[in-house]
């Protein structure tokens, strides 16, 4: 029997750096092991610890169930703790992710737009500056 395939996790973007290296190692000690932090784990940390979202909200943003989110988040914390304690470098790569390119619709001037800079806070219509915005449910393809 084959397991159920992993659901794609939606992430807002890629991290600014590809990873982190420890410094100040003692001579002769060998810390060559690398910890691979997946994109989805990075995103879970970003949502929970940086944006201070609760796990339910973060799970919705990544389009996975709340228990799945908790498992991703736990793995992320475990990996980072391991890297800190044992002095390994962290590489952020891999994972089954897709990028969030949500579209929004302005109810005032009927224009549809996206938010590629991932600005946080209230989204305003780029044309008429109105705050009456709904998120579109278009999934890929041509937007009309």
């Amino acid at each position, binding site marked *: 029997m084959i397991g159920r395939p992993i659901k794609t996790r939606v992430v807002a973007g890629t991290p600014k750096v590809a990873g982190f290296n420890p410094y100040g190692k003692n001579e002769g000690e060998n810390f060559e092991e690398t910890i691979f932090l997946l994109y989805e784990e990075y995103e879970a940390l970003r949502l929970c610890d940086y944006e201070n979202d609760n796990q339910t909200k973060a799970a919705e943003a990544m389009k996975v169930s709340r228990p799945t989110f908790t498992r991703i988040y736990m793995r992320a914390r475990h990996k980072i703790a391991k890297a800190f304690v044992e002095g390994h470098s962290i590489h952020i790569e891999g994972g089954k992710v897709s990028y969030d390119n949500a579209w929004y619709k302005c109810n005032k*001037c*009927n224009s549809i737009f996206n938010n590629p800079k991932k600005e946080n806070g209230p989204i305003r219509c*780029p044309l008429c500056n109105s705050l009456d915005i709904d998120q579109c449910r278009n999934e890929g393809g041509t937007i009309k």
Partner: protein
Amino acid sequence: MKIAISSKTNSIESSVDPRFGRCPFFAIYDTGSTKLEFLTNPGREAQGGAGPIATSFVANQKAEKVFSGAFGAKINSLFDELKIQMIVVTTETTIKDIIEKLKK
């Protein structure tokens, strides 16, 4: 900030062209200096890949927002990577309408 609008003709009264890749003209408007210029779209008569040609042309004009009637499937991911905002407006909208609204 510069914006690009796909345009049917090279006049300010012109309405927005419903196609991004194959529109005849791009109106490039600078919100800082309020300068408006019309440039021919190099992708207009391309055999194929008009969308990517138009995309790189607009990106080279340093536009941060693009307005059009519709964007093709290939263009979506390109603009996303370039962090350029796409805005789909109704085709009755004229270039003038957009500029007036942006001034407010």
